């Protein structure tokens, strides 16, 4: 497919220089972006690998936790209502979200934070029986939660990185398929125009000189009695004039 390249640029030598510089920096930018895209892809694959590994642990830890819960329910009766009622504003288990610089991108990383809850609300749970079982269940669920937080962290990094990769790839492609060819086309165009211009100049010069030669020849043909010697002089003069014609300050030559 062809992109419509406009030729609205003035084909001057200065512009030629300008666009050559643009081509160089566009190439440099392109190389840098490509390197960044490669680094991102590597990090991306690494995260993917870690996700697959962590998710494999989930099933196991979950089963453990559920077993613990079943045991606790068996020992202490159905305490689900009591747990719900004990939920307060001051949540002991929270997440800290840090931003980590991975391959030049700021990705979030979650860490589980446990604030020491000094109130005895939770320990009232198992008073009538099965307190140990409840505590064991709590431990297993905490372990399960840790794995979950790791996976969630990786997952968020994964999705963020995915978006960044898409943007970077778009910019790489834009450079490679739109900007750089456009600049190249402009450079070729200016080059061609400059060549054409200088060829035109040379051709015009030749024409003018030939015309002059003709006029001179006619002039001396009219004064035939002056003899051949004059003709030769005239030819020398024309030759000299020809050379002079190439000087820029010859006012007879109109460009």
């Amino acid at each position, binding site marked *: 497919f062809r992109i419509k390249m406009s030729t609205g640029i003035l084909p001057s030598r200065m512009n030629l220089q300008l666009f050559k510089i643009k081509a160089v920096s566009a190439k440099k930018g392109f190389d840098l972006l490509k390197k960044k895209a490669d680094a991102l892809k590597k990090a991306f694959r690494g995260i993917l690998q870690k996700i697959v590994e962590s998710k494999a642990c989930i099933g196991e830890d979950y089963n453990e936790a559920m077993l613990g*819960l079943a045991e606790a329910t068996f020992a202490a009766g159905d*305490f689900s209502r009591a747990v719900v009622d004990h939920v307060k504003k001051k949540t*002991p288990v929270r997440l800290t979200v840090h931003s980590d610089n991975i391959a030049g991108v700021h990705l979030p990383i979650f860490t589980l934070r*446990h604030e020491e809850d000094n109130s005895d609300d939770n320990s009232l749970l198992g008073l009538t029986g099965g307190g140990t079982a409840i505590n064991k269940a709590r431990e297993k*669920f905490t372990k399960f939660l840790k794995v979950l937080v790791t996976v*969630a962290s990786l997952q968020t990094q994964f999705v963020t990185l995915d978006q960044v990769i898409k943007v970077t790839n778009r910019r790489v492609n834009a450079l490679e398929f739109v900007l750089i060819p456009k600049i190249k086309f402009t450079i070729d165009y200016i080059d061609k125009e400059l060549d054409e211009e200088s060829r035109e100049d040379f051709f015009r010069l030749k024409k003018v000189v030939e015309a002059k030669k003709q006029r001179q020849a006619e002039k001396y043909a009219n004064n035939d009695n002056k003899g051949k010697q004059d003709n030769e002089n005239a030819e020398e003069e024309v030759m000299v004039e020809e050379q002079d014609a190439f000087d820029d300050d010859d006012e007879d030559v109109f460009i």
Partner: protein
Amino acid sequence: GQSPRLFLQRERERAMAKRSLEQHDALIAVIGDEDTVTGMLLAGIGNVDARRSSNFFVVDSKTTPGQIEEVFTRFTTRNDVAVVLINQYIATMIRPLIDAYESTAPAILEIPSKEHPYDPEKDAIHRRTKLLLGIRDQ
């Protein structure tokens, strides 16, 4: 070349993006069956705010997909929730909404349930990675 003003503006944007990621007491929300929610609350993630809205929701046989969707939207639009845990079988009930979820925060994590052990084929992230692995490996 680049103007220094543009450069400074980009630096400021970058710093802001970095800061907006930082949170120190983000919550974990959970949408699950009674056992899952009980277990999670036992572990201590439960939170009830001043207006009595909570970060957990128990799904039973009478819960409609509409209600689940509403809770899901509520949890994901809160800016103090960093992770939403959801049983996979519940996620399947609102699969279109979850598949359409494109934001990076909060993270949606599908966890197994007692009756339905973890099936990687149904996991939204897993399906995307399979697709991506096919396309990204150039």
